[in-house]
């Protein structure tokens, strides 16, 4: 890619944006500068609340409802000052010279019109092309973006097209007037890894082909490394630093950036199954399951979890990993098969389980926000299981809660009387862990516990979970889609696809080839911090052997597919 030194396209100076909340205007963006040259792709990265998306909209002179651009800010697009130009002047730029690609394509396409009619709207309105020309051009763009059936797909309605394809159609729509600048606002965040890679490849190609400048907004470092020429890091509405991609990746200057860059350093030593013939703690045996007579969500799923070990269950959305957890906890009784606990069958529904059976198996949730009752004090959230299962009362209960708070490294006196909304995301997740521990379980289901957290916080949680496992001899079922998490904490790995277990085994085996083709696809689709990762991958696999196309090609008669059962 390399940096193209050409003339400046977009110049933002001292951008301040305020948002309206609690009856006052609060600063969201606190004076950001940005310079973008023609043909340059700039990545804006930062955690949630950093203001990336707001800056993206401001680059089009657009302030969302409830926000305003403060006077004194300057947004100069190709010599036109957007903050002072009229609404009509700004509108004339949008769609024709600056285009926008939104995060959720499914919500951003109008459900009432065909894709191609929405595509041709801008070029026809700006009299750049006649309607039919614009349609032909659309079909050509669809082809360049490697959409299946380019001649026909545009004549469908948005709800008839899949998410990854919609996202590419939206990129095509942004290209319809050959703009000078496109704002990509988290275009792949809502997609699965294997789908994401196709969209990334398509976006990068088309931006390259037309030499369009772009602002690429994302929170994913590895993604931005593939896409951007320069990277700007934001934190709470302020710029942390900006540098060309290579330099930024190799040699970040600021502490905050370094902390983001730090590759997950934590690895738990891999444990192995006991050899003395003790039965597994949890054993899932040939389970089929479906929701109220719907299609089968789980198809003949079997795996074992031994005492004190961590089994990571990996798969994309819809693979059935969370449904498996629901079967184990008894929320969804299986239609076939059973769950054994220490060799004894567990009643299928949680309603039929005894108090002691219920306490054995606890759960930690992905979204700590919805997992903790916002109207209940921390002391009661943690204390209730202790009171419920062990009948603790008064001082004994208080001592136990203090003990648990100590265990999760939170100061008891500080947190005892607080409510969940007053805590940070990481603290909430710790409270969730303490609640699970309060029941004194032997087995905990961790459902994507780190995926909603920023990287550093997530690592703290993983370390805590590992320490607790060693101290209390807990078994974990670790549901995740993040392979880095699997590498750091798992002892064994189960890979799921479409409700089936495609491969399972000890971690070291699973991360060394040969893989099952799906595992291979999954492993190869996870973006890496290397800026050349995507290029190399495309060279290795070929553009037609990634994403959905590749999943479709998986041959059921493959050796590795046959021999999946361990």
């Amino acid at each position, binding site marked *: 890619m390399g940096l193209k030194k050409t003339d400046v396209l977009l110049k933002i100076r001292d951008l301040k944006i305020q948002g309206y909340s609690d*009856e006052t205007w609060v600063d969201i963006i606190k004076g950001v500068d940005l310079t973008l040259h023609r043909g340059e792709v700039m990545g804006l990265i930062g955690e949630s609340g950093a203001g990336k998306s707001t800056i993206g909209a401001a680059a089009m002179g657009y302030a969302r409802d409830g926000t305003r651009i403060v006077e004194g800010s300057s947004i100069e697009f190709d010599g036109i000052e957007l903050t002072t130009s009229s609404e009509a002047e700004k509108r004339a730029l949008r769609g024709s010279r600056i285009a926008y690609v939104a995060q959720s394509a499914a919500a951003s396409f109008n459900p009432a019109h065909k894709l191609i009619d929405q595509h041709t709207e801008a070029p026809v309105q700006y009299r750049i092309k006649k309607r039919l020309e614009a349609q032909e051009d659309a079909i050509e763009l669809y082809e360049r973006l490697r959409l299946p059936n380019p001649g026909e797909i545009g004549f469908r309605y948005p709800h008839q097209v899949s998410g990854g394809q919609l996202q590419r159609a939206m990129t095509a729509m942004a290209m319809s007037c050959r703009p000078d600048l496109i704002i990509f606002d988290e275009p792949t965040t809502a997609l699965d890894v294997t789908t994401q890679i196709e969209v990334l490849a398509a976006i990068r190609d088309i931006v390259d082909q037309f030499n369009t400048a772009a602002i690429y907004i994302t929170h994913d470092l590895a993604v931005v490394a593939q896409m951007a020429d320069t990277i700007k890091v934001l934190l709470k509405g302020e710029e942390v630093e900006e540098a060309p991609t290579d330099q930024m990746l190799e040699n970040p200057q600021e502490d905050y950036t370094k902390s983001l860059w730090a590759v997950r350093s934590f690895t738990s030593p891999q444990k192995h199954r006991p050899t003395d013939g003790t039965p597994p703690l949890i054993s899932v045996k040939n389970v089929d399951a479906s929701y109220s007579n719907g299609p089968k969500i789980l198809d003949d799923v079997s795996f074992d979890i031994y005492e004190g070990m961590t089994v990571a269950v990996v798969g994309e959305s819809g693979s059935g990993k969370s449904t498996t957890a629901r079967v184990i906890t008894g*929320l969804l009784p299986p239609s076939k098969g059973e769950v054994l606990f220490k060799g004894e069958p567990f009643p299928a529904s*949680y309603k039929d389980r005894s108090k002691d059976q*219920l306490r054995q198996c606890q759960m930690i949730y992905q979204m700590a926000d919805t997992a903790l*009752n916002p*109207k209940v004090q921390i002391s009661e959230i943690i204390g209730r299981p202790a009171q419920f299962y062990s009948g603790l009362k008064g001082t004994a209960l208080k001592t136990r809660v203090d003990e648990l708070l100590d265990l999760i490294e939170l100061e008891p006196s500080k947190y005892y009387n607080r409510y969940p909304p007053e805590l940070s995301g990481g603290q909430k997740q710790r409270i969730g862990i303490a609640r699970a521990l309060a029941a004194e379980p032997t087995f905990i289901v961790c459902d994507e516990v780190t995926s909603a957290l920023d990287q550093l916080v997530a690592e703290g949680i993983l370390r805590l979970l590992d320490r607790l496992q060693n101290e209390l001899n807990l078994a974990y079922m670790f549901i995740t889609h993040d392979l880095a998490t699997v590498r750091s904490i798992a002892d064994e790995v189960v890979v799921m696809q479409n409700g089936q277990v495609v491969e399972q085994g000890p971690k070291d085996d699973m991360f060394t080839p040969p893989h099952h083709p799906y595992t291979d696809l999954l492993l190869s689709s996870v973006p890496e911090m290397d800026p050349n990762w995507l290029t190399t991958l495309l060279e290795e696999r070929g553009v037609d052997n990634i994403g959905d196309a590749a999943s479709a090609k998986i041959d059921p008669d493959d050796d590795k597919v046959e021999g999946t059962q361990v």
Partner: protein
Amino acid sequence: MVFVILYFALLLLLSCGAAYYNQRSAFLLLFSLTLVSLILAIIGGIPALRFVAIAAGLLLGAGMMSYAFREFLTALASDEMAKELRTAPLTAAFGMFVIFVVAIMGIFAPAIAPHGEAEIISQAFAPPDNNMLLGADQLGRDMFSRIIYGARNTVALALCGTVLAFILGAMAGLLAATKGGFFDGTMGRIADVIMSIPSLIFALLMLSIFGGSLAAPSTSFWLLFGFAVVVGALFLMAAAYSALSWVVGAAIVAGVAFAFALAGTSLFDASEIILILVVAIIYSPRVFRLTRAVAGNVVVMDYIEAAKLRGEKNWYLIRREILPNSTAPLVAEFGLEFCFVFLLIAGLSFLGLGIQPPTADWGSVVRENATLISFGEITPLIPAASIALLTVAVNFVVDWMLHRSSGLKE
């Protein structure tokens, strides 16, 4: 003439002042008022302008009163309440003020009213004099006293009806959300059916059978008892989990229902009890739907799943997990429901089918004295206006609460 000159001078001065100090919206409002006044002056002459001036004066007075009342409340309330109250718009403060006044009127009615509720003290439709502030009604009773007593009767009935509708609807809604499945479906269908009959029409149907002057005390007692048993059964379904607790619970429910019915019949007369029950039955499906929806949003939360997996019983789930997270919308809905019930009762009384004479009530006072209107008198409109005012007031407060509970979303 002087009035007209002063009127326009003041308006122009104010709008220029607003324009000068960059108060855009105030300027727009004032200047458009000036323009409208010009047209009004041409069409309606001085009386029209006087009307505008009086209306503006009233608005200003109401605004100042509300402002002062809000400051008064903030000064009295605890820190946290005061912080909430400070966010209340003037309309909400006005609403609270009106509710406060009506409450005082109702509670201290016998002390405020100069004459008795049914006391005949002069000729029919006697004009106002020193003794009677608003003159006499169609039977020669003091109109002012009847309006004061009317506040007490109408509001008390509406409040009781709303409370009953709420207990039944909210309990069924919470239970349906927690239990789901068959119970949820059945309750939903029942609510569908009741809601497909227009409320006033359904009320008329039920009143034609049970209500009016023919209502028998024994009928109303058993109906009240039956209602209490239904509510009790819902509580039982939520709280009981073993055979023994069912038996004990059933006994308690029967006892409480009996006492409740006894208390009800001694407080209200038969036709009033029928009226309360009718509105309770008509509006409980609305409460059910809303509660079901609100609780439905809470039930899908992971903390409910966690509690279920812990083995908690329905009663704990409802009490500790669901209810604390649904109070804000439920309180707002209580206000809205009160408005509907209040309007329905007023409407029924106006039709002569609600509260029976000689008990005073805002709806029937309007009906009894409607003939005065054809002589250009506005006295019969005062109770009608009071109904509107109280309903507006409650709506203003509800609007504010909804706005708060929705987290300032549109």
